[in-house]
């Protein structure tokens, strides 16, 4: 026989079944991630090229208010049903507008507005295309019959059904670069970008250093260690609204506890407005710096709130370092600080790099903290707060989306940079 056994080529039926199963199991996740994360991400790019205001989210519609004018007390009485119609938008036209309404049984229609017709007790009115700010009245004369008097129904009980095609600015093909020119040409933009970078870099570094310090403290066994570890995690676990408002209350310049303590100790002469003051001049060696007070405070908050996370990871890594190395170093006469510098730190470098990367990105993305602490005032407005300000405070959704695009692009370039230069074996 010349046949020799050859390994199977291609994808076998078993492998194919496994593949199909895997895709089926991942499908729901894909669906929801695409719908809620990737879709909106692309939509944000779309919106950033559109001249869209917050008010444009409600498309223009015809508003019709209906009322009965006159009294229908006996059969044969005449009255009028009046519809007041208007365009809900002052600026946007609506095409092919009309409404239909069901008339109460037992009413005979007399004189009709020329734009309306009646068949089978259903009133249909058509207005064609209307301009923004359009207003009008439609009168329908009705005569009561005995059936109506026996069982009167208020005409308002049946709501008119509106029809019409308004341009939805979100789905139209009208594009503009105005949003981007607006944000890039404003003087504030570069300041905002700089503040974002300071906040991100120092907030991340602060959280890492504090976390490293705290991990050193709890890396020994002593009574009450579990308790202290739980306490150290509080800032991270508590809701951001709770801790942010607590800081605002604690640091209040007039009734805040911290300012009272500082005054009582004689550390300061007058209360410091930690969240309200943009900067104070500080003279050092004859040079005068503008020290940013509010920005420093929000950075301190960031470091305070997120040190527990880095603390947890660093502590876990520390406890997995083999004690052999320390014993060997001890025998070789290394001092405690040398042991930290030459053994602990290199062993922790991997986790520190990963933490720096993750925290850097998350800090850059952070919105709630600064928004709740200062609302972006006093020189603390970062890019993310600016997205909110542009989109919802100034009501210019397009400009907000344009800033969000900038956020995303900055983030993307940092991620690429990090992944390019980060050690390959960690993560």
């Amino acid at each position, binding site marked *: 026989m010349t046949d020799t056994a050859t390994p199977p080529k291609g994808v076998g039926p078993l492998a194919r079944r496994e593949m199909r199963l895997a895709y089926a199991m991942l499908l729901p996740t894909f669906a929801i991630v695409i719908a809620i994360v990737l879709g909106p991400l692309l939509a944000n790019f779309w919106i950033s090229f559109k001249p869209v205001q917050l008010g444009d989210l409600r498309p223009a519609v015809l508003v019709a208010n209906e009322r009965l004018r006159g009294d229908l007390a006996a059969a044969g009485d005449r009255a009028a049903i009046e519809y007041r119609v208007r365009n809900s938008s002052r600026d946007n036209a609506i095409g092919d507008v009309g409404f239909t309404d069901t008339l109460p049984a037992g009413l005979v229609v007399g004189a009709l507005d020329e734009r309306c017709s009646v068949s089978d007790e259903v009133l249909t009115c058509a207005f064609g295309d209307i301009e923004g700010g359009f207003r009008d009245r439609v009168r329908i004369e009705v005569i009561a019959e005995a059936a109506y008097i026996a069982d009167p129904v208020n005409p308002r009980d049946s709501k008119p059904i509106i029809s019409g095609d308004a341009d939805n600015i979100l789905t139209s093909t009208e594009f503009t670069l105005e949003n981007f020119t607006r944000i890039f040409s404003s003087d504030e933009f570069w300041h905002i970008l700089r503040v974002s970078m300071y906040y991100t870099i120092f907030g991340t570094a602060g959280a890492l250093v504090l976390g490293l310090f705290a991990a050193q403290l709890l890396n020994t066994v002593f009574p009450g260690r579990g308790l202290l570890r739980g306490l150290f995690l509080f800032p991270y676990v508590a809701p951001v609204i709770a801790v942010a408002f607590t800081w605002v209350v604690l640091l209040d310049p007039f009734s805040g506890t911290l300012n009272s303590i500082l005054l009582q100790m004689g550390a300061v002469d007058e209360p410091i407005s930690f969240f309200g003051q943009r900067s104070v001049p500080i003279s050092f060696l004859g040079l005068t710096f503008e020290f940013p007070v509010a920005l420093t405070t929000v950075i301190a908050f960031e470091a305070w709130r997120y040190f527990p996370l880095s603390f947890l990871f660093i502590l876990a890594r520390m406890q997995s370092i083999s004690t052999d190395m320390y014993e060997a170093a001890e025998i070789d006469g290394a001092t405690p600080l040398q042991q930290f510098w030459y053994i602990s730190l290199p062993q922790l470098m991997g986790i520190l790099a990963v933490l720096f990367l993750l925290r850097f990105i998350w800090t850059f993305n952070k919105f709630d903290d600064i928004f709740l602490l200062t609302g972006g005032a006093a020189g603390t407005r970062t890019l993310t707060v600016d997205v909110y300000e542009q989109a919802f405070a100034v009501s210019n959704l397009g400009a907000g989306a344009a800033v*969000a695009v900038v956020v*995303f692009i900055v983030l993307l370039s940092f991620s690429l940079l990090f992944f390019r230069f980060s050690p390959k074996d960690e993560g």
Partner: protein
Amino acid sequence: MRFGNGFFASLAIGAIWGAVWMIVVSITFMLVSGAITTPPVGAATLAGLVAGGILMAFPPGARTPGVRIAAAVAIFGVLGLLTLGQPLGLPLSAVPAYQIVAIALVVGLIWISIHLCVKGLAGAGLPRYQMEVLFIRLMKGLGFVLFTIVVALPFYVMVMTSLKSQQSLLANPLDFSLDLAQGPQALFRSYIELFTQFHFGTFLVNSAIVSVVTVFLTLLFSVPGAYAVSRLRFPGQAFLSRSILLIYMVPAIVLVIPLYAVFSQIGLRNTLTGLMVVYPATTIPVALYMLQGYFRGLPAELEEAGLMDGLTRFGVIMKITLPLSLPALASVALYVFMIAWNEFLFAFMFLDNIDIFTLSRGVVSLNSSEVPRQHLMAGAVVATVPVLVIFLWFERFLVSGLTAGSVKG
């Protein structure tokens, strides 16, 4: 007995602890008792310095109980003499009970801190190793004090402010003493008003519903996904297992404008359903990442044995994989619960109607000049307590689960 590097280091250590404990204890004293004082930090510094000198003047073996008591007495004596009989800067007749406790604490804490720092170390001729030990002991001690205060003070202020009245807070922001004589009704007035007038009962229920549903949906979606990524072979598996976390890096603020626009148009914006769609979508990637790391660590042989014995894939997951990964499931559930409970941005943007506010949104609505500050802090406490209690209950799971995904070996 020679006086060398160890002795001088001990003097410095004593001085530092004297100043630190005087500041810490007197602030605590002011917050608890409501009395006002300017603490004599200088006197305490000297007292600590003297005690450091006395302890270090004797070699470690010769520090008999007598020497130790002498050091403690010296702290008390120096402090008393330099402040002319007012160790906290107040006449002893003012709030005497609090003062006695505070003075005992100052003396005791200064003494024990110095003692622990210099324990077993001689006063002279210390090599670099021993000097570094001394330095590290001091830094660790200061670290404990500093971290505990910095972490605990805001929470202390939060709870205490909620139990005070606006007037007394404005009159003396340092006074957190509680007037227990006024009875629980008056003491917890802020909380009672929050629940009776500010709909906090509804907010609490809304937050609970949203968080529990989010946890449930997240697990429902991420368990099969994580199983597929960790156990089944398919093209793109390696890529997925590494890149799924990237989704978690997309900033919420970039998503909020399109979601706001679309949800407004389809009527999901001002609803809890809208939140229950968005929250799982943002937590599923991280849950999937954490779970697949855990699933990978389970022995595949167990599952293969199950398959051989005739279980279906579904049966394997339900009867073998899930029971084995209960700790990971608990930690993921806890983490997701925490995210959903604490979420602010989407709740703030989406919810207008007070009946469907979550706690995050509800507390923000208290942040106005018309609502007294203790109500705001009481709201913060109401929002914090459930998540803290649940967290402390399951802390072990959370810690192991959070660190399991990325930290290896």
